[in-house]
């Protein structure tokens, strides 16, 4: 089963729903013209389906392997990575200053989906490099930038993010790794876990970004600094030289993403790992947060990207697998199960929510493009708020839903779905990590409710509602019956968001509000989904391809009728009041 990049669908959403043209009009994005965007989607799609997708299953079965000498990736991985870097894909959205192509994040969102759909375990490697590049580009000295950036942007070297320690997961205040100053550098000591691509055999060097404490650092999150720790120290001419004291001591055995090595990293077992401070001491966590939004958006994209592959596989199976005649009519011939109503329901459930998730991720990426490039500071601020509001929704909702959809992908296959060789199960296994890493859904929910809603007194949410009402007006003005139906659904969604936000803003007990956070997150996902689909309905009016337009309308209608009502359940759950969970002794649970 090969992957086929949904370029037509992507192009429609980019051009007619999210507004690629507006992003391309921003200073610095002049090169993102329609023909370039189309060519990039086309060629990236080709690369994903012809180079990455064929390695996906073998990679899963073989997995990454650990030995004293280091981690070995599955057969074909190194060659594919070399091709990926040589083709320049790693540098798509990085600044031309460091050798990137400077394309908008919006386009990058579409392209990243292809890497993750075709081969999520592979796509994780450039995802992590991206975070490391941004940390260095935004906060490191010119000297560090010169030494590392160009080679990481080109993909010649990869990057890793070393945050987690056994006792410090979601709570980074508990980080214990240390960094002791010595001359022009620091000696880093400590153990890090869950380090994606912490070691591998695909490139000549790996650049670790490590959170650690300096000797006199204050307790808690205010005492954490960020360090660049290369696997190989650099020679005077910038090439990799002596081995640094940073090693992968084992890799994890996981439910999914088997080909992506998840490393236990040990820094400074012997003489101490040479590290270079990024920015100033004690500001490491803040530096990490500047790239957190982007990494979370990227994982949100993974959520629906894997579901897209699960959908393509399930659809192909449903067309091919013949069981029983159609329910109505005289025909007694057995038919493809795609013609059975419940299978249709599952396929539409998958496709409509993938579409909504895609629009949300594009909106979020476009918001950060505006926030970074718009000429007007006020507009930049507004879009920064929008991007930050959407990030936990994209990360939380799209990955939770993504797992559900991958499970439906298995379901459509019936018994065959439970058989590993079919391939559907791998998507479910792979997708399961997405609601966990880069901040669990619970963390996203707290972020959305606390930092992104209550902290600014609901300003970001109000701005979102204002934009939703503009769409409402456009639906009302349209006069076509599909727009009228969309308006009904959108009106309900607007009321739900508005009422629930007001209700939660009034809540004074943070523990009680936190108990509602997860319902709030899911409600925001389903309800902003109605907004996404309303814009899809409006956009179909510009389409000449009538068959494609009718598909979009059918997906929108399905979403309004069958999926958006989920928001109502979460609404009720919040309206019913929050139990004070501290009233129950955990011992009796």
């Amino acid at each position: 089963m090969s992957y086929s990049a949904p370029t037509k669908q992507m192009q429609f959403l980019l051009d007619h729903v999210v507004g690629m043209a507006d992003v391309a009009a921003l200073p610095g994005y002049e090169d993102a013209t329609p023909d370039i965007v189309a060519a990039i989607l086309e060629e990236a799609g080709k690369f994903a389906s012809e180079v990455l997708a064929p390695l996906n299953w073998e990679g899963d079965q073989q997995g990454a392997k650990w030995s004293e000498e280091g981690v070995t990736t599955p057969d074909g991985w190194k060659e594919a990575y070399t091709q990926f870097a040589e083709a320049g894909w790693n540098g798509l959205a990085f600044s031309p200053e460091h050798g990137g192509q400077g394309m908008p994040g919006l386009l990058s969102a579409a392209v990243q989906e292809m890497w993750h759909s075709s081969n999520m375990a592979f796509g994780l490697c450039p995802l992590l490099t991206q975070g490391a590049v941004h940390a260095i580009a935004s906060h490191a000295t010119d000297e560090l930038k010169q030494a590392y950036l160009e080679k990481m942007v080109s993909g010649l070297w990869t990057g890793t993010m070393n945050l987690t320690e056994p006792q410090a997961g979601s709570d980074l205040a508990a980080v214990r790794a240390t960094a002791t100053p010595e001359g022009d550098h620091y000696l880093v000591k400590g153990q890090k876990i869950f380090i994606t691509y912490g070691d591998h055999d695909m490139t000549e060097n790996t650049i670790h970004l490590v959170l650690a404490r300096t000797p006199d650092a204050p307790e808690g999150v205010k005492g954490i600094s960020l360090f660049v720790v290369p696997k190989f120290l650099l020679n005077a001419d910038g090439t990799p030289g002596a081995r640094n004291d940073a090693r992968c001591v084992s890799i994890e055995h996981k439910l999914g993403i088997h080909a992506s090595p998840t490393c236990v990293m040990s820094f400074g077992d012997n003489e101490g790992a040479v590290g270079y401070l990024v920015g100033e001491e004690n500001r490491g966590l803040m530096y990490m947060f500047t790239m957190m939004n982007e990494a979370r958006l990227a994982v949100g994209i993974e959520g629906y990207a894997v579901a897209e592959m699960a959908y393509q596989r399930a659809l192909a199976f449903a067309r091919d697998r013949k069981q029983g005649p159609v329910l109505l009519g005289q025909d007694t011939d057995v038919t493809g199960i795609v013609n059975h109503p419940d299978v249709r329901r599952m396929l539409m459930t998958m496709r409509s929510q993938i579409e909504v998730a895609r629009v949300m991720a594009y909106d979020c990426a476009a918001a950060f493009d505006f926030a970074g490039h718009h000429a007007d500071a006020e507009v930049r601020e507004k879009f920064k708020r929008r991007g930050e509001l959407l990030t936990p929704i994209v990360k939380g909702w799209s990955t939770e839903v993504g797992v559900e959809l991958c499970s439906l992908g298995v379901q459509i296959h019936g018994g065959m779905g439970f058989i590993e060789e079919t391939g559907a199960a791998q998507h479910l296994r792979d997708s399961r990590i997405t609601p966990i890493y880069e901040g669990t859904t619970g963390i996203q929910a707290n972020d959305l409710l606390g930092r992104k809603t209550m902290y600014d007194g609901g300003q970001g949410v109000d701005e979102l509602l204002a934009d939703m009402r503009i769409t409402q007006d456009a639906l009302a003005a349209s006069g076509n019956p599909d727009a009228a139906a969309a308006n009904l659904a959108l009106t309900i969604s607007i009321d739900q968001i508005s009422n629930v936000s007001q209700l939660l803003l009034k809540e004074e007990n943070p523990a009680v509000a936190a108990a509602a956070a997860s319902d709030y997150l899911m409600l925001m996902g389903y309800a902003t989904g109605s907004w996404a689909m309303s814009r899809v309905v409006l956009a179909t009016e510009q389409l000449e391809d009538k068959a494609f337009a009718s598909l979009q309308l059918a997906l929108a209608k399905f979403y309004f009728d069958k999926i958006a009502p989920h928001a109502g359940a979460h609404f009720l759950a919040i309206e019913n009041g929050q139990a004070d969970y501290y009233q129950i002794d955990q011992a009796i649970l």
Partner: protein
Amino acid sequence: MKILVAVKRVLDYNVKARVNAEGTGIDLANVKMSMNPFDEIAVEEALRIKEAGKADEIIVVSMGVSQSQETIRTALAMGADRGILVESDDELQPLAVAKLLAAIAKREEPGLVIVGKQAIDDDSNQTGQMFAALMDWPQATFASSVDVDGDKMKVTREVDGGLETIEVSLPALITTDLRLNEPRYAKLPNIMKAKKKQLDVITPAELEVDTTSKLKVVKVEEPEQRKAGEIVGSVAELVDKLKNEAKVI
């Protein structure tokens, strides 16, 4: 030396072709179109000859609708230097294409013209041969290996029952077979550069070529559906059926 490569915009090889409702051709409405795979091989071979220092410029030519510019851009993104589209909304049959290509070859005076052995839409396998005849050039068709050496060229051809190696003098025509090479993927910086490369759009009239079709398509039909098999009870029954029903023995 200049190399001229002809590329055709065709139904993507992954798309299942469907006959249109009128039965006059393949339904091309809203389906994915791509470069003919044999032509990708032709572009790749030209690039390799240039990279070996045996050519200076690669010109990519296409004939057909305006969207064929995308196909030319794909070749430019792979590394070709400039493009020419002979734009026409009319159906262009192999002879018309060969004449147009000949008119361009007379203008550009390439040392080598490379085309795919056939396009996967109509499978004609005629354009290259007609072009060589019109130009009175040597032709090396179904190439699986090409070695340019000064004003001569050794080409291995895939023929029935084996391989044939011939030597031709330049200028000459090559048509590419499947095993000649594996086309490269376009690199991102080259995709961006391709936009800035020269792409001229001209018309058949400018080349003074009459593109009127000489052949008329009478009917296009889907192949007959394969019928279900049958398990026979004995060898005798099988022989009987082969003799009397299938009438093959």
